[in-house]
């Protein structure tokens, strides 16, 4: 195709057209720098988000099913208060999952009040279990207690106290082990896992203590003996440093004694679901089973402890992407100036080409191809720069830290190392946006070139 080969020849800098060569160089440099900046920023932020989400979903799950108010008003939830088989105690979802059927015995238990809800045709918990058939899931419970750890070091004895948020350990979680720090001891009924920040407070493996809570019926302090079996990385979770992972037995014990609510509205029990299932698929399953009114299905980005931070982070990223897009557009506009100069420089050749039979579309194609070539070249250069920068991101971070006189990226939030791989999404964005914008910018001078009257130019030459 002669248009492309001519476009390439036009773009090669020549001594006799220094201005065009200089502007071409500036255009390519500016676009490359913007591509580099956008790629590095989007790759790093996308990697950070991926790490956050990875740790967050490793601790909890990508999907969570929690009971709605309708569940708490249902016959199957309230009946435990009236059933001797349930010890007249409300059961957690986990307990209900393992005790199918209706615990109420009309001939043995007390008569139900007139306002008591009618018995539903489907047991909400058993219905949920059937709806999740074939999926990897586990019930969870969240509770609160005062953690007291006895630290005996070199003959000194001290107590460490911390109001804690207790999350039942989900041993079915396929990625749970990735959170744990090395040397974790085998888990037992009395072992707990602490956030790694406890290491800074001097807590060690095997330290003992107890979880203290006040039983509602007796108003007496209850103590559950515990032992530290390990530490885990809580990621960026807002309550991460106070979230203690405990056996489900402990949270059930606390639930049976005291009503638990969480300050941010996090459901205190429900199911975590892992595996290849999306929220819409799960919602469809629950609707088909006729139990959707009893359950709220949420994806990880809707969880109370992550929602606001993730939304803000994504919003900031989107804002920067928009700013990056605008800067890219402005940078690509340089191509217009460059090509207008080129068109002026090549007026005679355009006229000759037209005299030799070139159509207007061919002339437009030559200059459109010039714009596209500048875009593609700049994208390649910017991508290469971004790749090199990401490969050496630690050096960049240390330079930034030394310039600021403090750690540029807090490891608590961003991890020990910033992500150092190119984000496929960011790469797709620049690979499409830059050449397209450059091509569009090339169209303005291309149209100008097609308006030249060959006879006028040739006569003036």
């Amino acid at each position: 195709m002669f248009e492309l080969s001519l476009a390439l020849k036009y773009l090669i800098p020549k001594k006799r057209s220094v201005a065009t060569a200089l502007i071409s160089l500036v255009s390519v440099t500016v676009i490359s720098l913007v591509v580099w900046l956008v790629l590095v920023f989007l790759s790093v932020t996308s990697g950070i988000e991926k790490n956050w989400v990875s740790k967050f979903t490793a601790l909890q799950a990508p999907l969570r099913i929690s009971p709605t108010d309708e569940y708490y008003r249902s016959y199957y939830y309230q009946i435990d208060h009236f059933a001797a088989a349930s010890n007249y105690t409300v059961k957690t979802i986990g307990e209900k999952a393992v005790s199918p059927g209706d615990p109420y015995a009309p001939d043995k238990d007390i008569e139900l009040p007139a306002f008591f809800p009618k018995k539903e045709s489907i047991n909400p918990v058993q219905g949920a279990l059937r709806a999740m058939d074939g999926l990897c899931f586990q019930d969870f419970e969240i509770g609160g207690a005062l953690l007291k750890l006895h630290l005996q070091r070199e003959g000194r004895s001290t107590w460490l106290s911390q109001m804690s948020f207790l999350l039942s350990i989900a041993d079915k979680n396929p990625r749970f082990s990735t959170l744990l720090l090395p040397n974790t001891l085998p888990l037992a009924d009395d072992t707990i896992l602490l956030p790694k920040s406890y290491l800074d407070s001097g807590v060690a493996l095997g330290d003992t203590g107890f979880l203290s809570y006040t039983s509602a019926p007796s108003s007496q302090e209850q103590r559950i003996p515990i032992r530290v079996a390990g530490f885990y990385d809580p990621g960026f979770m807002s309550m991460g440093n106070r979230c203690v992972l405990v056996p489900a037995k402990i949270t059930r014990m606390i639930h049976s004694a005291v009503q638990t609510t969480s300050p941010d509205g996090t459901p205190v029990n429900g199911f975590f679901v892992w595996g290849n299932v999306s929220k819409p698929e799960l919602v469809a399953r629950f609707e088909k089973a006729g139990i959707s009114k009893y359950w709220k299905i949420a994806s990880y980005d809707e969880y109370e402890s992550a929602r606001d931070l993730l939304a803000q982070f994504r919003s900031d990223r989107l804002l920067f992407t928009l700013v990056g897009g605008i800067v890219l557009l402005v940078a690509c506009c340089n191509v217009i100036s460059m090509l207008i100069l080129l068109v002026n420089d090549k007026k005679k050749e355009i006229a000759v080409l037209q005299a030799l039979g070139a159509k207007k579309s061919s002339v437009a194609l030559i200059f459109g191809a010039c714009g596209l070539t500048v875009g593609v070249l700049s994208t390649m250069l910017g991508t290469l720069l971004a790749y090199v920068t990401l490969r050496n991101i630690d050096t960049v971070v240390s330079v930034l830290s030394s310039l600021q006189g403090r750690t540029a990226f807090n490891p608590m939030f961003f991890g020990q190392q910033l992500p150092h791989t190119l984000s496929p999404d960011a790469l797709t964005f620049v690979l499409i946006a830059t050449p397209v914008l450059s091509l569009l910018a090339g169209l303005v001078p291309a149209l100008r070139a097609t308006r030249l009257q060959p006879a006028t130019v040739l006569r003036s030459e």
Partner: protein
Amino acid sequence: MILHATNIKKTFLHPKKSVLLNDVSLSVAAGESVAITGRSGEGKTTLLHILGGLEPFDEGQILVHGKPLHPEMRGTKFGFVFQAFHLLEDLSALDNVLLPAKIARRPVSKEHGLKLLEKVGLSERANFPVKLLSGGERQRVALARALCNNPDILFADEPSGNLDPENAMSVNNLLFDLVASEKKALILVTHDTTLAARCHRTLMLSNGKLVESIS
């Protein structure tokens, strides 16, 4: 007739309204050479550009092989030789020669270009950048380029106007030899009466009218 132009009118509005060509009619047969002469500013080049589809005209009709003139005919039916050569400086002699075929998207071999360069005596300079060639050589490359798509009519505008007498003679001889051997029609614009005399017909453009001066 290969080319038949009737009642061509061309008016310029700038710097003031003036009729440059007024009811100009012209016919050219296959293999015929026609010279257009006249004083400077009479509109010889404009007429050549109009006949070659490079410039629009206000009134009249031009038929090529009985069909109305269309700009696309420039690449296939016409060949141009300009006074200032108008070669593409970034390309080699061979690439310049083959350019019309590439523009017309015709499959063309390198050998075709080399053969044309051989006809103009420049096969040894095929890969030379044209900026390194002399004026006479450049015009010979332009001549080979004009023949690339095997056109029916050659339009030549003062083909030897920028050359020294020796080179001018050589290029003119080549032009007439090629036109005769390839059986092309030639429309030649020139001030040179000797050169014009080598054509079958000479037409004089004066005050917007085209008059046959010599048979």
